[in-house]
Structures are given as structure tokens and as C-alpha cells.
């Protein structure tokens, strides 16, 4: 097997095994269209760096780390790039992209997500990795390239800050008629 074929085999294995997980990671952080863009970018980077992608359990963590950076970069650029993409795609009469799916959320979900959005980026990411990707602290440390004890401390603080922001939002909610003292 030559190097090129071996690299392709490795890439295909990684792609098949982890595409959904990476798409899920991205989808939890951005809208559907951006998530697909970001996932494509993650695997493009993986292909470009296929020789350095770690093996085994660490592969997905590495991909998450790349996705974290891609989304950080993409967040700012997405509006501009989307416009450019639409223009390029229009040249070839590509299928029209539909609007982003509307996610119907429960009020509590919205509130806790709003509270999370008020946290710093690193705080948000640690909570998502722990809560949504269900990673233990040592794996979060690997994704974010920080020490495990730093993850412990930051996670604990992030949880407290999340609760604080949640409470703050709760206090800002307009009172219901019952809370207004039962006025008719």
C-alpha cells in the first residue's frame, strides 16, 4: 500500500467513524447550514493533516479541538462567507439552500441557553463539552489543550456562573398576572 492509499484509508475510517459526532458537535453550537460548513472544514483540515491525526480514542478529541477552532474562526466570518458561497453556488445552479431549521425550544431550554450565552466562550465550551458531548474532564483537557485541574476549576466556576446568570434572567422575566398580586 503506498502512502497516498494508506492516507486515504485512514481518512475514510476517521470520516466514517466520526462524521456524525463532529456534525453533532457543530450543530450544537451553530445553525444547520453553518454546522455542515464547519464539519466540512474540519474534515478538510483532517485530510490535510492526516499524518498527524492521533489514533484511537484521541481521534475524536482531536477533531473536536479542530472544530472548536474552526467555529471560533467561522463565527465572525459566517455572514460574509455565506454571501460569497451563495454567489459561487449560484454559478452552478446548485440546489437552493433552505432557511435554517427553526428549533422549537422549551421556555426553560431557552432561558438556560440564554444564560449560557452570557458566559465567556471558554466557560460555555467547557459546559457544552461536559454536558452535551459528555466528555470527562481529562478528555475536555485534551480538546482544549489545558490541564485537567484547570478544567476542574473552570468547570466548577462555569457551573456557578451559569446558575448566577440563570437566576439573573429569572429575575428579569416580566411578572405573570398571578405574581402581580392577583389583580383581576
Amino acid at each position, binding site marked *: 500500500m503506498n502512502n497516498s492509499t494508506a492516507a*486515504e484509508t485512514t481518512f*475514510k475510517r476517521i*470520516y*466514517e467513524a466520526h*462524521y*456524525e*459526532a463532529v*456534525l*453533532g458537535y457543530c*450543530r*450544537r453550537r451553530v445553525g*444547520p*447550514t453553518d454546522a*455542515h*460548513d464547519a464539519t*466540512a*472544514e474540519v*474534515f*478538510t483540515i483532517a*485530510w490535510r493533516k492526516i499524518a498527524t491525526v492521533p489514533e484511537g480514542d484521541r481521534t475524536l478529541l482531536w477533531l473536536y479541538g479542530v472544530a472548536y477552532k474552526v467555529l*471560533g*474562526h467561522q*463565527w*465572525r*466570518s459566517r*455572514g*460574509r462567507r455565506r*454571501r*460569497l*458561497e451563495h*454567489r*459561487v*453556488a449560484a*454559478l*452552478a*445552479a*446548485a*440546489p437552493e*439552500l*433552505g432557511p435554517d431549521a427553526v428549533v422549537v*425550544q*422549551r421556555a*426553560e431550554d431557552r432561558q*438556560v*441557553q*440564554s444564560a449560557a450565552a452570557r458566559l*465567556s*466562550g*471558554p466557560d460555555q465550551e467547557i459546559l457544552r463539552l461536559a*454536558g*452535551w458531548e459528555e466528555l470527562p474532564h481529562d478528555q475536555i483537557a485534551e480538546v482544549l489543550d489545558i490541564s485537567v485541574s484547570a478544567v*476542574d*476549576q473552570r468547570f*466548577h*466556576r462555569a*457551573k*456557578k456562573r*451559569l*446558575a448566577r446568570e*440563570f437566576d439573573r434572567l429569572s429575575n428579569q422575566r416580566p411578572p405573570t398576572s398571578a405574581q402581580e398580586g392577583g389583580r383581576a
Partner: protein
Amino acid sequence: MSHPDDVFAAFIDANPVPDVAVLEGGRPSAELFLSDLERRGTVMKTTEGRRIPPDFGDQPSRRLSAPPGRWLVAAAAFAAVLAVGGIWWAVTAGNRGPEPAQPPPEDTVGPEALTQAEAWLAALNAGDVESILAIAGSSQADVDDRRMYEYHAVFAASGRPSTTVHGCEIESANDRLAMVNCRVTLNDPVAAAVGLGELISPFTYFNDALTWQPFEGGDIGLLNRAYAEYLQLFRPAEYEAACSPLAYEPGSVVQNGGIALTGECAELQTPLSDAVADWVEQGRPQPAGDLEAEAVAAAELWMERLNSGDVEGLVEITGPLPIDADRHMFEYHAVFAAQGRPSTTVESCAAVSAAGSRVAVECDVVLSDPVAEALGVDRLVFPFSYLDGLLSWQPATGADITLINQAYAEYLQAYHAADYEIACALGANELGSVVYSRGVVLTGACAELQAPLSDAVAQWIRDGRPQPAQ
């Protein structure tokens, strides 16, 4: 469960994609993904980077197979893959091929793109928003773009234009599309503090419209995150009002690293640039008030670990360096935790005093052991001292906790004498190597004996501590 745990549980429930399996329909095959990248590479090389492939993005419907209901998702996903892959390839192709970049021919839009990119950066650094908009035309004239230009205009007006431009060059060009890269350094002192050196400011020129792309060669997010972190710590109200992306209508601002790139935010940032840079270089020290919060958080973490039986976690944050006796005692509590009966329920922790960098914290707790309740000593205060990131715990106050140990010792001596001698008596344990209190050693072995007997001991106390029949 504490309130932060409850909120975090709600956060977990708010996972917008709890099951990734439902996303499966949007995946092009690995072969297709690779062949697309490879095909694009071939096309770009054979045409010296001058042509956009005429069949750009037209293949998925023939090669993908998916249930009818998933067509739209699959097609949209693949179009996105092609678009991103194509743009990425177009942007980076000049750096990837083994052959040197070809000079742009006369019939490309490269020279025009170069001129416009240079003019665009000059306008940005002059804070000339209208000129920027005139150059960019409709490609970057949305409200969020305008606000971003205003952001840079505020920095320019303060005498510190956003960038110093070291030169621009055409990376690739054809008759409609050109990529231009400009080498820049950011003039913000925070950029240097976070380690950002020379960056590439890329531009795309397409169908007579110039589009500014995000900086490459460094993570600009480091810069903005430093500002966001500083402002959240030291100027939280002003941050919330001017720089938090949540202060603006969704989609009305460009945001990065927790900063909304608007003129209002830049007005807050510009006078603070030097202070933020100093703060970064000093290791981002927390404000004094935050030290107390940090101490409380550490105490809460310590209690959480005690109750979850996380011995190594306790050893890690306990200072001075724990001795064997501490470890044995942590193991004692871990046995109770493993049997579903964590040692305490924490009601609250609070900082009670601070002197210099030392903070005293007290946690009000309720002991979970029924023996404590039977003795009326179940409500305690756990005092801690926090210094330099390490937590020292002090003996509990508020009730005589040793009565619990004494009761266990009496019961075990009366009803389980042989087991007591092996597991809980000081016996073979060297004095000093274990915590010994009122007849029992606080070790994992003793807890293994005690934990299943807790209810029996509590009942024995309520019955007046009867002695066994001879």
C-alpha cells in the same frame, strides 16, 4: 443537589441535538468527499488556478442515495461541503502545490483586486466608513458590516488605527475571482500581549465586489476574548451594555470572542487597551472580590468531592500537602459515598473573612448519617482556609461530631467486637498514620464495617443503648 447542579442539569436537557443519529442523512460518503477535494485539486493545478470549475457543485444528486425525506438535507449539506471545500481550495491552492505560484496574467481581475484591497485597508485604518462601503459595494454593506467598520473607525479616531499594512499580493486570480493577501500587524497592544504577530488579511474579489475575509495566521479570537474577559471582570455593566453580543439584535452585529464589534464597544475598549494588555501580561489576575468567589468555589468543590468519594480530587486541592491520615479519612467518606450515602448535604458556603490573599470560608452542612441525627449533632459548620489556590480544612464546628464516632465504637465493641478490633480499633494502625477519634479510626476499612450498620446504630441510640444479653 446544589442549585448550580440543577441549572447544569437543565443545560444538559437543553442540548439542541441530543442524538447525533438523527443527523445521519446529511453525510456525503467519504469517497465522495475525498474525490471532490482531489478533483478540485486536479482542476486547479491543470489550469494554474485561473478557472472556477464549470461543474462546481453539480454532482450530489447522482451519487448520493438517501431516503426521499432527506433529500433536501443531503443536497444542502453537500452543496455546503462543495462550497466550503471549493473556497478553501481556491484560497489555499497557491500554498499547496509543489510548483511556485504563477504570476497573474493580464486578463485576470487580480490587479484590480489588489488595488481595491489596498484602498480598502487604507480606508479601514483611516476610519473612513463611507469609503469602505463604496469599495465593498453591496457585498459587505449589511448593518453588521457597517457596525464593524464603525468599530475600527473608533480605534482610528483614537489615533491607533487597527492595522499596519506591510504589503499585499495576489495569491490567485482568474477572469472573475481573485484572492489577495495583505500582510498586517495589529496596532492594539492587546494583540502583542496575547502573542499575535504578523497576520494575513485575505480578500476575495468576485464579480467586481471585494470581500474582506477573517484574518489568518493567528487566532484573532485571542484578542477579543482578552477584552471580553477583562470587561466582564472589571467593567461588567458597561460590557453588558456595549460589548456583549446579547446587547444587540440577533444578526445585527459581527461578534468574535464575546465581543460585539460595534462603535459603542470600541468606545469602551479604546481607553482600556493599555490596561488590558498589562492585565494579560500580568497573568490576568482576578479582581479582589473574585478571590472570595474563588475560595467559596474551592470549598464547594471540596465538599462535592467529599460527598462523591473523589479521594484523588480531594488530595489535589487540599493543602498543605495531605498526609496519610488525610487520605485515609477521605477514603472513609468515600466508602459511605459509594454505598449511596454521601457524608453531607451542603446547604451553603460563604466567605466569612479575608486578609490579604487568605480567605476564610464556612460551609453549613447537614450530616447524612442517621447516627448523627439520632444524636442531634447533624448540623455542622465546615470551616476552610483558602490561600494561593489551596484549601485547608479545619475541624467541623457547631456540634460535637466526635459523639458519632463514640457511638459507633460503643456499638461495635458491644455487638461486633471481633470485626471492630480488626477494622476500627487503633490496633495495628500506627498512631499518626490515621485519624483516631473516640474509639474508631477513620479509614476505609472501618467505614466498610460502619456503613451497613448506620441504621442499626441509630436505632440502638434511640432505644437507650441497650447492652447485649450475656
